[in-house]
C-alpha cells in the first residue's frame, strides 16, 4: 500500500503544478480533497482494513499527504488570485514609467514669498505689521519726515504728482508718522508695501516697487539696538556666515544714519568678476538710522522721553539677489515663464 500513497503524492504534485484556471483548481479539489470520492478520503477509508500494527503509521502518512494537498491547494488558489490581480494591474499600468497625473500648482509671486519670509522673521522678533495709504499727501511723504520744501533730498523729479493735489508715496516711511500717531510707544512695526518713483523702467529700475519699512520706538533705544536688530535679521535671511557692514550715510529722517551692506551672497567677495557685487564683495541692502527727533515730534512722540530706529529695504533687490534675477522688470511683467520658475 505505501506505493499507492507515493503514487497519489506524485499525481497530486503534478496536478497542482498544472493548475492554471479556476476550473483546474476545482478539479484538483474534487480529485484529491473531496470528502466523498477524493482519492485521499478513500485512503482514510481503507485504514480499518489494515492490520492493527500498520494502522498508525499508515494513518500518519495519509494525514501528511492530506496536509500537503491542502497546502498545494491554498497555494494554487493564491497564485490564481494573484495572477488575476496582476492581469488587472497590467491593464491599468501598461508602463510604470509613464508620467504621473498631476497639474502643477503655480508658486506665488517672488515678491510675496520674500515679503512673507521677512515678515516671519520680524514677527518672531515681536514686531507687528502695519499698513498705510499709497496715495499720500506731500506732508506725510516729505514734510513730516523732516524733508521741507526745497530740501535737496526732496526728490521732486522722482515723485508722481496727482492732479488732486496728492502724490504716490515714494517710500513706506510715511507710515512711520501714521503709526506713531495711532499707537503709543513701545512701537515695533514693519510696513511692507508698494512705493512709486518716476523712473523709466530699465533692468535696475521700475516706477513701482516694494519696500519694507521698520520702526522701533521705546525708551532707551540706541544705535547698538539698530545694529543688533539688522544684523540678526540679515544673518537670518541670508545665512549665519553673512557679514554685515554699517556705513555712515544721510537721510533727513534719521540721525545718525547708516547704510547697511552685506557680504556678497553669491561670491562672498572672492570673485573679482562677480556679476552680483561687481567684485566689490559687498552689496548695499538697506538704509537705516535713529529716528530724527523732528520725525518723532511729527508723530506725536516726545523725543526727550523716547528714541527709536527705523530702516527701509527694497524687496525687489532682495528677490533679485535671492534668485540671481538680473532684470527687475520681470517682477511686474508677470510672464508665466518667469512666475512658474519661482518655486
Amino acid at each position: 500500500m505505501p506505493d499507492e500513497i507515493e503514487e497519489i503524492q506524485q499525481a497530486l504534485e503534478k496536478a497542482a503544478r498544472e493548475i492554471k484556471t479556476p476550473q483546474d483548481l476545482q478539479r484538483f479539489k474534487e480529485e484529491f480533497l473531496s470528502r466523498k470520492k477524493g482519492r485521499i478520503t478513500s485512503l482514510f477509508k481503507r485504514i480499518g482494513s489494515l492490520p492493527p500494527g500498520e494502522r498508525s503509521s499508515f494513518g500518519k502518512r495519509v494525514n501528511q499527504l492530506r496536509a500537503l494537498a491542502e497546502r498545494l491547494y491554498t497555494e494554487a488558489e493564491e497564485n490564481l488570485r494573484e495572477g488575476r490581480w496582476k492581469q488587472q494591474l497590467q491593464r491599468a499600468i501598461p508602463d510604470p514609467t509613464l508620467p504621473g497625473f498631476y497639474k502643477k500648482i503655480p508658486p506665488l509671486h517672488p515678491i510675496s514669498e520674500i515679503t512673507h519670509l521677512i515678515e516671519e522673521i520680524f514677527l518672531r522678533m515681536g514686531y507687528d505689521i502695519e499698513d498705510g495709504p499709497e496715495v499720500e499727501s506731500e506732508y506725510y511723504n516729505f514734510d513730516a519726515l523732516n524733508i521741507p520744501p526745497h530740501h535737496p533730498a526732496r526728490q521732486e523729479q522722482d515723485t508722481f504728482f496727482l492732479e488732486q493735489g496728492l502724490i504716490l508715496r515714494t517710500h513706506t516711511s510715511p507710515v512711520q508718522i501714521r503709526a506713531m500717531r495711532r499707537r503709543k510707544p513701545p512701537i515695533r512695526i514693519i510696513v511692507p508695501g508698494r512705493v512709486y518713483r518716476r523712473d523709466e523702467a530699465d533692468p535696475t529700475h521700475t516706477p513701482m516697487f516694494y519696500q519694507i519699512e521698520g520702526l522701533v520706538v521705546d525708551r532707551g533705544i540706541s544705535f547698538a539696538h539698530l545694529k543688533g536688530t539688522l544684523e540678526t535679521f540679515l544673518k537670518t535671511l541670508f545665512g549665519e556666515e553673512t557679514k554685515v557692514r554699517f556705513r555712515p550715510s544721510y537721510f533727513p529722517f534719521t540721525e545718525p544714519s547708516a547704510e547697511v551692506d552685506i557680504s556678497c551672497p553669491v561670491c562672498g567677495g572672492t570673485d573679482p568678476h562677480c556679476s552680483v557685487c561687481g567684485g566689490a564683495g559687498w552689496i548695499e541692502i538697506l538704509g537705516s538710522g535713529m529716528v530724527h527727533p523732528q520725525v518723532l515730534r511729527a508723530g506725536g512722540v516726545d523725543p526727550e522721553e523716547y528714541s527709536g530706529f527705523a530702516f527701509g529695504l527694497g524687496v525687489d533687490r532682495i528677490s533679485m539677489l535671492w534668485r540671481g534675477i538680473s532684470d527687475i522688470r520681470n517682477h511686474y511683467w508677470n510672464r508665466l515663464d518667469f512666475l512658474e520658475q519661482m518655486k
Partner: protein
Amino acid sequence: MRVSINWLREYIDLRLKREELEGLFSSMGFPPEEIIDWGDDLIFDLEVTPNRPDCLSHYGIAREASVFLDLPLRKIEFSLKESDEKANFPIEIRERSLCPKYVARIVEGVEVGPSPDWLVEKLEKMGLQSINSVVDLSNFLLYTIGHPTHVFDLDKLEGGIIVRRAEQGEKLLCLDGEERELSEEDLIIADHRRPVAIAGVIGGEASGVDFSTRRVLIESAYFDPVTVRKTSRRFALTTDASYRFERGADPMIQEFAADYLAYLISQVAGGRVLKGRLVAGGWKEERKIRTSFSFINSRIGQEVEREFIQKKLISLGAVVRVEGDTLEVIPPSWRRDLSIPEDLVEEVARFLGYGAIKGKLPPVEMPQGLKTPQRDLLWRIRNYLAGLGYSEAMTYIWTSIQADEFSGGRGVPLRIKNPVDKEMPLLRRSIILTLLDSVSLNLRMGRKGARLFEVGRVYWWEGEAKEEKRLAIVEAGEIKGRTWEEGPREASYYSLKGTVEALLDRFSLRPNFTLASHPLFEDGFSLSWEGLNLGVVKKQVLELYEIEVPVFAAEIPLSLFPMEIRREYEDLAKYPYVRRDISMTFPEQVKFQDVERALASLSIPILRNFRLIDLYQGKGIAPGRKSMTFSLEFRAGDRTLTSEEVDQQVKRIIAALERELSGELRK
C-alpha cells in the same frame, strides 16, 4: 565730487593704499562711485551726501580725513600784498534775508591769459575745461575750499553792485550763452543799470572776464540755500556754485575766499590788489548745542570715553566746553549740518567707526505682532488660488483713459500729472484692467493661455482719495490639463465662476449672485454680489489690449472675506444619507438660480445637498426646453430617514418645480 589724491596730499600727509582710501571714504559716509587712474594720481569720485557741503572740496575732505586719521591738517597760507590805493565800489544788499553777507575785492591791472599748466591739469582732473586764468582760478578756489566765488570785469559794471530780486520781465544773457527770463522769485546781482548775475547760480555774459579784462571785482557772498535751489530748479540749471549754495555755504569764509582768490589772481595774472575788502552785511553765528556725555552714550548704546568724544569734537573744529556730564559745543561755521545733540551722536559714532559699535537686540517686554489676521487671510487666499492653478501677478497701477471708462469704478479716477507713459495717466479703478496687460503680454510671448490673480488696491477720488484692497482673477485661452490623462481645455466662464465659488466656500461665504450689468462685462454674462463682480470681459475692452481670445474675470473686495477663522463645527453624521436623482425638463429661459430659489423657499431641513449633475438639450427633449438632472441628498441628525419620508419630500420638490417653473418630470 571728484577728489585728486595728490591734491589732497597738499593738505594732509595721506599714506594710504587704494583699498585703504576706499575704506576711509566709505567710513566717512562718502563711498566712491568711481576710481580713475590718472598718471601718478588717483581720482576718486565720491558720493558726498547733501548734508555735507563742507566736504565738496579738497580742503574739506582733507579736514575730514584729518579728524578720522588723527593727522595734522596743513592750513592754506599765503601773504596778500595790497596796494596803497583803496578799493572803492558801492555794494548794496536789498534782500538781507536772502543774502546776509556780500564781500568783494578789486584787483587792477590784471593780464588775463591762458592758465599755467598746473592749473589746467588740476581743472582737467575735476572734469573742467580751462577758460582763462582768472575764471580758472575762481574754479580752482571752488575745488580747493568749496566756496563759490564769481569774478566780474569791473569795467563792465556801472555804478555799483546791488543784490536784489529780479523784476518781472528782466532778462540776462548768461555765461552759458543762454538768455534767461528772470522773475521776482530770483535773487540777482545787478549793477546800477541791469542784472549782471543770477545770485549763486551763474554769471552774465556781458560782465564776464575775458582776455581784454584789466580790472576785476571778486564776489564772495552767502546766498540763501532755498532761493538758490528754487531758481536753479526753475531754470533746470545746476552749476558747481548752485550745487554748493543750495546745500549751505560756510557763512564765515567769504573774507578768506576773497583774499585767497585776490592773492591767486595777483600771482597768476599779475595786477595790484586794492586795499581793503568791500563788505556789505555780516553774519553772526549763534549755534550752540547743549548735550551730555551720558546722552551720547545712551544713543550710541555703549560707553565711549569722554576724552575721545572731546578730542574728536575739537579736532573737527568745534569749540567744546565741559562741565561735569554736560557738553556745550559750538560747531564750526562750515558744519551747517550740526545743530542738535543727535548730530553730535552721529559724529561720535562715525569717528568711533560704526563697526566698533557692538550690536544688541532691544529688550522686548511684550511682542506686538501676536495676531496678524489680514496677513494670514491674504496668505490663505493666495495659496488657495495657486492651488487652483492661478499664478500670482503684480501689475503697475496705471491705466489709459479709454480703459478706465470700463472700470465701473466709484467716484472719479485719480490722475497722475507727470506719468511715465502719457497714455497711462490714471490710477486703476479695477485691477482686472491692469491684469489684462499681463494676459496680453503672455499671449504675445507665445503662451496659449493665462490664469492670473492679483491682490492689490484700486484708487479713486470722492472728495478725498480712496483706496480699496481687492482680489482680481482672470483666465483666458488654453488651460493645461493633467498631463496626458486629460488634454488641455479652454478657459471658460464656468471655470472662472467655479474658482470664485470654491474660494468663497473656503471661507464659508455663500454668495447670492444676481445678474448684473457692469461696464467691464458683456451684458447678460455678468453676476454680482456684495461688491463682487464677475463675468465675460467685453470685446471692446479686449480690443484695447489686443487680446483675441475670450477673457473671464472676477474682482472681489477683500473686505468680503472674514478675517477670523471660522469656529463652527457640526458633529459627524450618525445616520446615513439618502440620495435621490431627479431629471426634469424646463423651458429654456428658466435659470438654475430659479430652481435653487424654488427649493430654498420650500425650506426642507433634511435636504442637505443639492447639486446639478447634468444639463441636456437636444434629441429626446422637446424644442424650447432643456433637461436638468439634480442629485438630492437627504439626512437627518437624529434618526435614519425612511423611504416614505424622503419620497414625500421629493414629491413636494417636483410639485413645486412643476408649478412654479413649468417643470416636467422625465420618465
